[in-house]
């Protein structure tokens, strides 16, 4: 037996002296396929997983605590650090929750831009998924191709807001900027490029690839009942045959006006989920194309008119005394939303991203709870991995598409 002390701490993976001949190994927290800081303690019988214990918290930054100590506008850039693959979806989920609390609505142009950014982020995030998932399973070239297109998407984000990873491209009550010149043409070109690549590169490389299918088919099977029970949302839920997409069922922004389908797979396995990611990207480009004419018909107002909560436009602040005074109070003290609580779910690329905000009428949120989809998908691993083989563990972690900024918060 090991005698742990300060110099030789207890190592789980040296535990060979058990009677049942199982081996405990640590998968992570620095394993490249652990998608961040996941430490997965696996008990193995030969190559078969007997018990899995996901240990999280290696990326904990206390974001919920920070929310209690920051004004509502101050906190917004912090939400970038939740799901850093698709930052705008976090910014948006938070901004929408605060807007619901305030009872305001963004103007139509802001809504069009936000919907565009959300879908663009969905494409970026899904491309990242395809890339890393393929890399985890062993297909290196897909990674390179998918990252190439993702780079174009990030260039679009950079053209819009100046940032590539931590966008903060949404504000409470609207968006800070209008689209730059030529952006819509670039967006249309990006859509065409992605559509082409989905069919001719990723699809051609993976869809009917024999090795890919052998590695993914019937791996990580989740029944619909289990998926609901474990709190799976997004593609994890739709991959199990439950057709539920918040964009359709509890619509927000311009989604009710847009024409798009919700792909569902009843295969319940990793391969079905992979196909859903591919199809969702296609639906996203379809949405983006529809948004271009919608945007062109909107009025140029970008921020909601709610002087009690939201600063006036720069022009008003610079020319009108009262607008300047209000802006000063809003910056120095922060907005004071009504007393009450909201829970607002949105469909982020990973699943249901919801913000629960409890306000006591102060400029600081009394409590903010971020309902992160990846957190619950990580919880599912302890059941999903049992009985599978070590080689499939990586595939299953990949298919859950967890991001640790969101899991640990």
């Amino acid at each position, binding site marked *: 037996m090991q005698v742990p002390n300060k110099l030789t701490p207890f190592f789980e993976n040296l535990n060979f002296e058990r009677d049942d001949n199982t081996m405990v190994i640590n998968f992570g927290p620095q394993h490249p396929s652990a998608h961040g800081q996941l430490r997965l303690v696996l008990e193995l019988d030969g190559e078969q997983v007997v018990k899995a214990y996901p240990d999280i918290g290696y990326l904990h930054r206390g974001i919920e605590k920070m929310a209690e100590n920051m004004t509502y506008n101050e906190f917004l850039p912090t939400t970038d650090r939740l799901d850093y693959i698709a930052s705008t979806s976090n910014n948006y989920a938070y901004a929408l929750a605060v807007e619901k609390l305030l009872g305001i609505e963004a103007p139509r142009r802001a809504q069009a831009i936000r919907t565009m950014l959300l879908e663009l982020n969905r494409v970026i995030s899904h491309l990242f998924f395809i890339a890393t998932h393929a890399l985890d399973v062993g297909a290196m070239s897909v990674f390179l191709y998918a990252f190439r297109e993702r780079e174009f998407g990030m260039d679009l984000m950079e053209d819009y807001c100046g940032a590539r990873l931590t966008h903060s491209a949404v504000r409470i009550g609207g968006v800070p900027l209008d689209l730059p010149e030529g952006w819509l043409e670039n967006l249309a070109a990006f859509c065409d490029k992605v559509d082409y690549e989905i069919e001719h590169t990723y699809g051609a490389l993976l869809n009917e690839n024999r090795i890919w299918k052998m590695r993914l088919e019937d791996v990580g099977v989740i029944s619909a009942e289990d998926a609901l029970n474990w709190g799976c949302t997004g593609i994890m839920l739709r991959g199990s045959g439950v057709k539920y997409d918040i964009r359709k069922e509890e619509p927000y922004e311009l989604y009710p006006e847009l024409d798009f389908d919700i792909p569902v797979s009843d295969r319940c396995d990793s391969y079905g989920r992979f196909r859903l990611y591919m199809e969702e990207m296609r639906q996203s480009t379809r949405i983006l194309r529809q948004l271009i004419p919608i945007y062109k018909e909107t009025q140029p107002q970008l921020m909601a008119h709610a002087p009690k909560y939201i600063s006036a436009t720069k022009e008003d602040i610079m020319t009108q005394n009262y607008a300047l005074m209000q802006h000063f109070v809003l910056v120095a003290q922060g907005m*004071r939303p009504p007393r009450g*609580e909201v*829970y607002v*779910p949105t469909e982020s690329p990973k699943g249901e991203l919801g913000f629960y905000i409890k306000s006591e*009428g102060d400029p*600081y949120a009394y409590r903010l709870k971020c309902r992160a989809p990846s957190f619950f998908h990580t919880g599912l691993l302890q059941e999903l991995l049992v009985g599978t083989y070590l080689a499939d563990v990586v595939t299953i972690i990949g298919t859950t598409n967890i991001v640790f900024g969101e899991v640990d918060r």
Partner: protein
Amino acid sequence: MRKYVPKDNVQKKAYYTDRYHVVPKVPQSEVVEGTHFAKVLEALENLVLSSSVQLGQMVLHINPKDNFEVIKILKEQCGYTQCSEQSAVDYLAKENEFELFWQLLNINEAKRVRVVCRLAKGEAIESIVPLFNSANFAEREMFDMFGIKVNNHPFLKRIIMPDDWEGHPLLKTYPLFGDEAASWYEVDKIFGKEYRDIIGPENRDPAKIDMKDTKRFSRIGYEVPFGTEYNADKEVPIEYSETLLVNYNKKASKQLDERK
């Protein structure tokens, strides 16, 4: 006199509030007869203390001891097959109790219900893991962050903070930058308590400038040799030597002077 700081809530507070500021409320409405929510209320009978509809979601206030029963009825009779979220709000400073909430989703009707209860300090809540596995991690997180015990949880252990962490970070009494134990956590764990004096508490402010630190900072005008111990009494401003211009070419300078 030192400024009084309330100890029961050390979170940031507004430094100024207008005397006439009236806090509005988020709109609430009664449950309308004949809707889906009215049927849910009917199924729950007398288990509900009060109910309202807020922003399209029903909020049910219940007794903490009924939580399992209420959520079981919601799941089995009303079709709320997913528990999206479960956590708590700290009201210890004001009312000496926690507010717990469960956010449930009905997939078929696309309706959401929030079950809310007030739990007195030191009491435990019944686990709903037999109904919803998603509560497994959520309840562990609630225990980790607030120290609320959950009865019959299969594996109630800290989830985000380390196992040997002291205190529960989301309590209002817990400061943003961590408490005393937090600042010594790494030192105690890696080196032992006896090394506290040598290493010093952890600096959680990356922009902090320590005037006594002569290894990483130097002060212009008060430079001392690297690593010297700081002594306020011995602090002497350094007199820099002024560069003297020696005039070797007297002829040329004369010409300059003449020109002036």
